[in-house]
């Protein structure tokens, strides 16, 4: 059922990563398309986060990556840091798992929202500030003007994650990598974030790589789903197919372990 219509905004081919001589990714292949949410599932430690970090060249100290990460016709793995910095934040942005730790606790929201905007887009302080307020409004932070002056710890977890998403969107990137953006949040709050992500993808034509281990979340927002195990993608396909008729036994076992059998409807 896979539609080969659009070209991939980002494609990962044969990505291998080793940390301290320890192989954690053994050749990951992924293609992410504009305007679609690509879900990446898999158990803890399967290498989901490392895949996302490898794209931005943010692997931990002592790592080595090989393979190819194609973006805009270039291989990100080969790119010198200076040029990679032009891509990071501007073309490819990332949202991390825990909003409590991914925002700098000692800098105002404004600072964190505008710094890279001014750097990448070359806009002035005033304009950056206006755009920032607009972004906060877009992610539905009440009182955006006033919120700019506050510090992260003055917001709740859900709001912080919205701010983190606003930070990621600030330079209008083409690709957004969201590493378990809702895991640290309550279900009621999670629903809001998922809706936001889906909306951004649909409205802005963003290509989203959504990393999660929650198949429910996957089912709710992803268009494509990939399943990872032990540093390899074992299955990729459209959401409906992977979740309803998994081909790989591992995917099936994941689904079987769920407390509520798939297919059974909620009230």
């Amino acid at each position, binding site marked *: 059922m896979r539609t080969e219509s659009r070209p991939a905004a980002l494609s990962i081919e044969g990505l291998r990563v080793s940390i301290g001589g320890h192989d954690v990714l053994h050749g990951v292949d992924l293609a992410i398309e504009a305007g679609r949410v690509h879900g990446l599932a898999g158990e803890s430690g399967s290498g989901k986060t490392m895949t996302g970090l490898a794209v931005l060249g943010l692997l931990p100290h002592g790592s080595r990556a090989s393979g190819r990460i194609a973006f805009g016709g270039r291989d990100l793995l080969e790119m010198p840091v200076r040029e990679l910095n032009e891509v990071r934040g501007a073309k490819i942005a990332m949202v991390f798992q825990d909003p409590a*730790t991914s925002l700098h606790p000692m800098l105002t929201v404004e600072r964190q929202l505008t710094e*890279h905007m001014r750097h990448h887009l070359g806009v002035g302080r005033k304009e950056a500030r206006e755009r920032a307020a607009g972004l906060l409004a877009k992610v539905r932070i009440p009182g955006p003007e006033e919120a700019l002056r506050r510090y992260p710890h003055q917001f709740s977890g859900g709001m912080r994650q919205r701010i983190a998403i606003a930070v990621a969107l600030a330079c209008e990137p083409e690709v957004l990598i969201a590493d378990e953006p809702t895991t640290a949040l309550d279900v009621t709050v999670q629903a809001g974030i998922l809706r936001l992500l889906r909306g951004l993808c649909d409205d802005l034509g963003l290509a989203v790589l959504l990393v999660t281990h929650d198949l429910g979340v996957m089912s709710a927002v992803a268009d494509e789903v990939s399943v990872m195990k032990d540093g390899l993608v074992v299955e990729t396909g459209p959401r409906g197919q992977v979740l309803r008729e998994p081909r790989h036994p591992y995917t099936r076992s994941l689904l079987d372990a769920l407390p509520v059998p798939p297919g059974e409807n909620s009230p």
Partner: protein
Amino acid sequence: MRSPLARFLVRRIVTALLLTVGITLITFVLTNLVPGDPVAANLGQRAVGDPAIVAQWRADHGLDRPLPQQYLMHLEGLLHGDLGTSQQSHRPVLDDLAESVPATLELAGAAILVSLVLGVGFGVVAALRRDRLSDHVLRVLSLVGISVPTFWLALVAFYVFFFRLQITPGSGRIDPGMTPPPQVTGLYTVDALLSGRWDVLSSAVGHLAAPALVLALYTIGLLTRFTRSAVLEVLGQDYVRAARAKGLPGRVVLFRYVLRPALVPVITVAGLAFGSLLSGTVLVEAVFAWPGVGQYAYKSATTLDLPAVMGVGLVVGVVYLVINLVVDVLYGVIDPRVRVS
């Protein structure tokens, strides 16, 4: 409206004041445990033989009262700014301290300044160049720094730099014969600067260099180590990764995102290190004939000069208080979570 920071500071001040009282109590108790009679130490040989004079002297110094009362008298004096009279110098302890404390503060201040600049610098470099050669070298050097016996290093430095190489000037704070600058702060370097006495300034800096560096070696090592681990810890934080993910240049990430939080533990350590510098001065001042509070303390402690020892205790307590406050205020400046919330 009292801000949380103000409330926090008030609490710290109160605690520190209580601590100071505690310190005076400890010094009082300790000095009274010392075997040996201050009377013998302070009266002339012949006068000691005359019971009337001894009794008179004891009464004058309140030594005939019960200990708790003596302590209360001491505290009462403190409230009136009276630290008593040194039994050794026969001068008000306050005057003695007014001379020796600035000397030590100048020494320790110079040392902490050097340590902060070098220690933090080295620490950052080591962290950024983690596991490379420069990191290893800096780590070993910082360990050496905290392992060198200060008193020995002072001797070696004095011998080598003053005597053999003849590049540092001799004992004291300025060249003998040079008139000290008009006293404003008591720190010769600052006072010389204020009064435009360039010759004095260069002499004072020259005299300060060797002892301050000797004193600083330990704290440089200490701060290098803590800065390194603090920076490494911050480098591992999500928000740094997030900042890098934003495509900010390394320099910006380092100075805006990494250093600030890394400085929080470093400030704590620097505050504590200042305390250890004050300790170190006891050993260094003797070798460099630096007329500071370390020598004064040593002399007072060994001569059972009770008012002087208690004066030193008090000064040290106040310095501790001030340093703690500075550290707390710096916390507030650095970390909005302390300031706002």
